């Protein structure tokens, strides 16, 4: 095809024209292919062929571990500044980890995946912690004066607020459990009269711990901690102020509604007064039973009859009647 084309080309007058103008329109000196490709020889018998040398892979020299060049008194906090998986070439310690059969040495630190798995504290050496503490010291403020002991700060801050922060390995920092707020305070820190105290205890119910004399509010119904804290403080305030309100129906509390026996409003007081004022005339000062007797009667009925209470009651009766 190409030879035919060349022949046609030669006949054309264009070629001469081009040669005269000096423009090379078409390649005239086509190099002829001298070396003809040899046919592959069919090798029926297995003749040993020349061993072809494989191309050698040029490899960059692997640098020796960095630990070889480490000074003995180097600054370790600079060599390992942040948490990182274990790397044998950076840690100049002859570590070994792994279980082997009896007598065999444990696998060394090189190519040891177990050492890479376990969390290490190489970034939290005592000098590193000291260094970091020094660095953040300038952000600290001195401890407030007057709050040195626990007794002192409990007097100024009677309400204890307990919240929990959760650290987790997740892309989110939110945790639903963090919304819970617990506030507690000693009941003795609140000022009550007898009615208010009784009503407050009725309002808080089992949130009052009798053994430790503390009231505890746990709130978790709002989605945020701030809202729960506000709600808990609201509950405390509302209960406290509500306990001082005397509703009109509270006056209709009969003896059957009383939760404890009170000497003042019972028949035994009238009976004791009757005995003490047996021979008193009209207009004389009435003798009231002594408070020790009243207390012992209350104890006898509230706590039940036991040996101690009965003996005490006997003593008090004897004392009162001068027997």
């Amino acid at each position: 095809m190409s030879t035919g084309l060349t022949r046609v080309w030669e006949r054309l007058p264009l070629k001469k024209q081009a040669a005269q103008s000096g423009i090379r329109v078409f390649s005239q000196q086509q190099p002829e292919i001298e070396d003809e490709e040899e046919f592959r020889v069919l090798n029926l018998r297995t003749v040993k062929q020349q061993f072809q040398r494989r191309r050698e892979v040029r490899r960059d020299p692997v640098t020796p571990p960095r630990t070889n060049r480490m000074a003995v008194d180097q600054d370790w906090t600079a060599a390992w500044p942040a948490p990182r998986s274990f790397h044998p070439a950076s840690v100049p310690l002859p570590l070994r980890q792994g279980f082997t059969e009896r007598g065999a040495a444990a696998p060394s630190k090189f190519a040891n995946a177990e050492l890479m798995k376990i969390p290490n504290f190489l970034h939290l050496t005592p000098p590193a912690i000291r260094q970091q503490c020094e660095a953040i010291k300038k952000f600290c403020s001195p401890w407030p004066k007057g709050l040195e002991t626990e007794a002192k700060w409990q007097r100024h801050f009677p309400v204890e607020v307990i919240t929990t922060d959760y650290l987790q390995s997740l892309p989110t920092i939110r945790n639903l459990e963090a919304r819970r707020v617990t506030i507690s305070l000693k009941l003795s820190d609140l000022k009550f009269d007898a009615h208010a105290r009784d009503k407050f205890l009725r309002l808080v119910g089992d949130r009052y711990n009798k053994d430790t004399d503390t009231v505890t509010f746990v709130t978790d119904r709002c989605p945020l901690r701030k809202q729960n804290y506000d709600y808990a403080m609201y509950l405390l305030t509302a209960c406290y102020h509500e306990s001082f309100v005397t509703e009109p129906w509270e006056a209709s509390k009969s003896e059957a509604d009383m939760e404890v026996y009170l000497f003042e409003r019972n028949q035994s007081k009238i009976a004791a007064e009757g005995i003490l004022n047996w021979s008193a005339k009209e207009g004389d000062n009435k003798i009231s039973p002594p408070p020790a007797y009243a207390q012992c009667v209350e104890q006898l009925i509230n706590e039940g009859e036991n040996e101690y209470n009965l003996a005490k009651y006997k003593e008090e009766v004897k004392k009162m009647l001068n027997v």
Partner: protein
Amino acid sequence: MNFLKKLVPQVALAEAQLLSRSSIHTSAVCCRVQSGRYRITTKRNRPLTYEMANPPHFIGHRKSWNSWNTSTLEDGLRPSQTAIEDVFIRKFMTGTWHALVCSEVIIKRQHNTIRIAALIRQAITPRKMYFLIGYTEELLSYWMQCPVTLELQTVGDKNDVIFKYI
């Protein structure tokens, strides 16, 4: 057959109880476990890494976990998503570092960062390795929407990680 040997007293007990009451025969539960365990070859030439040499019931005793996160703790959040992400990271790592990863891929999560550790063969030039580190970190951090750090250790030969032959 070891598991059968262990079961023999239990089965005998169960059978004795059953025979006394009725003649219904029950077979023992099939509790064959195979995952993470390797058969011994006749020529004893199967290479095992330390990880492979210890079956799964030694996790926490002879070897430790490959995934470290708080999702698997009690009341941990999004455990399923974390597990799926870990599977994806492992697949991506072994595919990106093709025929180079000599160990299990260790995934440690701290707060919002993911740290991936593995043993890599020194079969490619350091330049390519640096490229792959950046590539993996960049793509994974884009997908996981959190910083990803690769903490690799290289080994000269893949035989370096072999613990024993069975």
